[in-house]
């Protein structure tokens, strides 16, 4: 009997080992080129200390960059790829996920400045078949409501069919049309314009509207409106899996069972990002993200009046402080200070954030190659790290 039990244990062990393979693993190579930084940046040691602390608590890899009056600096800790113990480089790019919304909002504002779109017109004023067929009460929803998430349209990424679809076929993401169809028949969460509910669907609709009014696709718009004018060399929309390898993207990790064990989900993360379009499909390196944000704040992307509109905050019915502007998230890390703003981004295997502190003119960018999409220990670790970094930069003088 004992002999049989040993044999069964051996068989089960072999079986478990045989079932596992590196299905989502991607090769990781160094990002080409070298980014110029100020090696004597005054925030350098503190930023390094904070990220080292969280890497010592189990984050695989973190990159953080700051751009302010003292110049530009990038700190990193941990690994870009755990399996090979490869470190982050200054030029290691990443998927931005929802930071993409800032770019999309800026392009909508540019089109408003050209008179191609009016923020207070309704969706039905710009007829797009996929919007008319799938968005409930489109005639009551304005462009502004899409931009500040007060439309009430359900978040497609939170729909059970989207989430279960991720598990069934992670490398074959639903098309824009199929994602729009997921919204068909879904009632609005509230009367349009009366509350706030963050929804990726709003920015997918905005992408369709942008493409409709300009007659060009999102990629082409991004190139001509933002990438080329600002001279951004390392900003891409929907780079292919092969390109992400070539550009030196890190590998990405996910705590599937919320038990502090990570698995490599790089290809899944890339597939998901590639299908996140105008709400999450941009990738860039830290230098480019902070350059874009700096240009946005300096009036090089949209006019001062448009920037002021982007910073017109709305407050949800249950919120105690403002939530969102037009493509910008509001935050207040220091009592009595000028409110900070920026945007976070989250994929299955990464978490990012761009954050601006008006009082000291600092732009912070955070890039972690672990996801916090599901509730669990990594949600807290990553959120705590982001909060500590933002609080530090908000208080810095």
């Amino acid at each position, binding site marked *: 009997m004992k002999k049989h039990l040993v044999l069964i244990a051996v068989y*089960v062990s072999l*079986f*478990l*080992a045989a*079932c*596992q*393979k*590196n*299905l*989502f*693993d991607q090769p990781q190579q160094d990002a080409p080129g070298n980014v110029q930084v100020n090696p004597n940046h005054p925030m350098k040691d503190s930023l390094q200390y904070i990220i080292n602390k969280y890497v010592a*608590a*189990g984050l*695989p890899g973190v990159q953080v960059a700051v751009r302010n009056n003292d110049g530009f600096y990038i700190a990193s800790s941990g690994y870009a790829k*755990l*399996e090979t113990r490869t470190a982050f480089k200054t030029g290691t790019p990443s998927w931005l996920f929802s930071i993409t919304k800032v770019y999309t909002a800026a392009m909508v504002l540019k089109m408003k400045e050209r008179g191609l779109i009016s923020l207070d017109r309704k969706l039905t004023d710009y007829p797009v078949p996929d919007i008319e067929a799938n968005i409930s009460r489109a005639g009551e929803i304005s462009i502004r409501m899409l931009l500040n998430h007060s439309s009430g349209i359900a978040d497609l990424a939170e*729909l*059970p*069919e989207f*989430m*279960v*679809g991720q*598990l*069934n*076929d*992670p*490398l*074959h993401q639903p098309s824009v049309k199929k994602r729009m169809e*997921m919204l068909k028949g879904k009632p609005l969460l509230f009367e349009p314009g009366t509350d706030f509910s963050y929804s990726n669907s709003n920015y997918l609709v905005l992408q369709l509207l942008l493409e409709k009014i300009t007659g060009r696709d999102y990629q082409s718009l991004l190139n001509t409106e933002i990438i080329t004018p600002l001279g951004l060399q390392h900003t891409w929309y929907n780079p292919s899996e092969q390109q992400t390898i070539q550009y030196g993207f890190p590998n990405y*990790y996910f705590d*599937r*069972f*919320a*038990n*502090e*064990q*990570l*698995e*490599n*989900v790089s290809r*899944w993360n890339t597939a998901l990002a590639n299908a996140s379009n105008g709400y999450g499909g941009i990738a860039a390196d830290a230098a480019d993200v902070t350059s874009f944000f700096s240009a946005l704040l300096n009036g090089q992307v949209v006019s001062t009046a448009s920037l002021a509109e982007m910073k017109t905050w709305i407050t949800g019915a249950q919120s105690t402080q403002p939530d969102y502007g037009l493509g910008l998230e509001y935050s207040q890390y220091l009592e009595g200070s000028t409110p900070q703003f920026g945007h976070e981004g989250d994929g299955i295997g990464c978490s990012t954030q761009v954050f601006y502190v008006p009082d000291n003119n600092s732009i912070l960018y955070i890039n972690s190659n672990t996801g916090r*999409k*599901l*509730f*669990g220990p990594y949600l807290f670790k990553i959120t705590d790290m982001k909060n500590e970094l933002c609080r530090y930069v908000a208080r810095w003088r």
Partner: protein
Amino acid sequence: MKHLFFSFFVLLGVIASGQRTDQPWQLDLGAGLHSFYAPVENLKWSRPELVTTASLNKLMSRKQLFSVGLQLGYARNNYQGDALFVQLLGQITPVIAQKLEIGFGLGAGYRLALYPSPAQKWDGANWIKGHSFKGVIQVPLQFSLGYRSLRFQSLEFRPYAAWQLQGLFRYSPDLSPLPVSAFLMGMKIHNYKK
């Protein structure tokens, strides 16, 4: 759901306690396709993979109207990790319309949900190899349609088709219960001679 589950097992227990004990043991072999799916919330049945099951059932009542079985299963999943499971499944299997056997089953079990890729864990100083699976509670609900029965020598064969909906609990807090549907074709076999 909890009450339904509890009542079902109480009913089975009551019935079983008053039943003849000379009913045979039955071998039940099944195979089919499974996917994360339930017929709710516009979920889509997509990219199914292979599942196989083997059970040992104890038939009960003179007309073999009830059974309780211990079922072992293996579910392949290339992207989300394979699974091995063991579950106790109680079934009510009345015969209607001549030889058509319908079945309704409910049970509880344990699933070893494997990682699709090697998991890594931080031990405070280094990244080390993690456990290769997580134990998940599984609640199966089964509907079946079968033919009772074909006889060959002393063996009786009952072919069937079944849909088994498994609710996975504790897979991840945000994905609980996670639904899995398995469409199975199988054969129940027992020796009808004593």
